[in-house]
């Protein structure tokens, strides 16, 4: 997954909170497909309909601020989001994203340079984002290798099992 090319299907501004993503009042189930249905309901009720598998979500500063609820990242991913590119992320959301296999790319300048419908190519190792629709490019600090590996294996969970096995081998 060194390079990903897809379409920007949704765009948000600054300080989108985990309450926006999965508001407690709407949660009736923790199932990914259920939380996806309520994702962003208070701020963009059309979000689940707009986002489709493989879609790119672009946002402003401090994306995912607020609570540590992992349902927020699960909902964004289950709605179809392949990758979130934001000006900056709140730290718990950022970690949660990689932990469930949703890459979060911090790319200053992305919000103003991108519109819904743009065709984007993300070159993960090079730290480069090419906007094929507009013919522009932006740079970002490449994702640390350990987090990149986490995305490749599908999140943190498989690595917990790996670490447990390693530990039991060492003690045997």
């Amino acid at each position: 997954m060194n390079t990903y090319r897809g379409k920007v299907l949704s765009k948000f501004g600054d300080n989108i909170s985990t309450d926006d993503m999965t508001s407690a009042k709407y949660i009736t189930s923790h199932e990914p497909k259920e939380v996806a249905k309520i994702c962003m309901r208070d701020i963009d009720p059309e979000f689940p309909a707009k986002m489709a598998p493989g879609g790119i979500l672009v946002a402003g500063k401090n994306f995912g601020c607020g609570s540590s609820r992992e349902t927020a990242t699960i909902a964004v991913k289950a709605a179809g989001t392949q990758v979130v590119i934001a000006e900056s992320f709140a730290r718990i959301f950022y970690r949660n994203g990689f932990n469930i296999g949703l890459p979060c790319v911090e790319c200053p300048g992305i919000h103003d340079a991108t519109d819904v419908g743009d065709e984007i190519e993300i070159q993960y190792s090079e730290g480069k984002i090419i906007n094929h629709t507009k013919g522009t490019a932006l740079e970002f600090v490449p994702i640390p290798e350990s987090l990149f590996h986490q995305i490749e294996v599908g999140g943190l969970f498989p690595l917990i099992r790996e670490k447990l096995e390693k530990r039991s081998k060492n003690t045997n």
Partner: protein
Amino acid sequence: MGMTITEKILAKASGNEKVVPGQIVVAKVDLAMIHDALGPLFYPNFRKLETPVWDPNKVFIVVDHAAPASTLSQAEWLSHNYDFVRDYKIPNFINNQGVAHQIIPEGGHILPGQIAVGTDSHTCTYGGLGAFSTGIGSTEMCNVLALGELWFRVPETIKVVITGKLPRRVMAKDIILKLLSMIGVDGATYKTLEFCGETVDEMSVDSRLTLCNMAIEAGAKNGICTPDEKTVKYLMDAGVKREDIEMLKSDDDAAYCQEIHIDVTDLEPHVAIPHSPANAVPVTEVEGTPLNQVLIGTCTNGRVEDFIAAAEIIKGHKIPNMMRCLIMPASNKIYAELARNGCMEIFAEAGCVLLNATCGACGGFHEGLLFKGEACLGTHNRNFKGRMGSPEAKIYLASPATAAASAITGVITDPRKI
């Protein structure tokens, strides 16, 4: 170059002599807090690992969010907590006795210099006792329960120096709201907020917990205060032995990425207006704003001193007929103390709603949701749009004194004028 208190804690827990900001370390965890709403997200995966909990004595499972359940789906997720506690023999199971962020400090379960993680962003509260404490997601908690450790990027530290004597009816909450208005909701992202200065030295441990509770509202990884004799007394009252308490502080030559000074001598009560905790303005700018509900309590301001401040203002008054004034202590222990010291009687006679110790309406779970067009002023920590119900409701944040003054008048009121 010396180390900050946060760097010292992370160095020790990761087996390093010294750590520097930006360094990634794997640290051993001293306390893992799981609450009812987010535990069930990882319990099925943890069961798949077929491994015991690394150290059940270090795990606290706290039912505080859906406490007690108001819907069938909440009742279902509670049942998953009960099953997990039973199956994995978790000794520290706190069921409907208060909010984790009060239960953990008041029980003496976390000590200065220790590392705590919790499946709640306000886990940063325990920094008020001099611990490194931060919120994590459910999958990371699965990692902690299996392995007893977690990776951290050593944060840069912002030193917040607070000086001066707090004026009458101005509280720690007003300081943290003021700070948030200065640095913004992402002013401390990935960083530590270290609170120091004579005002912090003078304030109670409860007030320090209020400061640290809202560190996350600036995006901080953790908030922290230097442990002192007040910390020791607080913990010894909770049953901790003095010899078990490690006193540590930042070195004089520790490096800070930023230094912020706040003189509270002339600080006004502050109110965060919708829809951000960083939208704080002096109360005088929003006086007279009509309210439908006041919430006094929560993990931010649900402690004894908070209710004493509120009771002093509410005593002898009646809550207006169209106002709901919710009283929600942060724990049963606090509830009992308020019953003993007369506060509960004052609240009941004034016409307040006496609620159990829970996260309640703060998280939008139950007990006080807002309809469109309604306005609530609360002593909690977050006023995001839609958090307490309708996205068309307005949420204001303030101190217990401002909340109490507003409860008896029905409009946002300067507590200094009561």
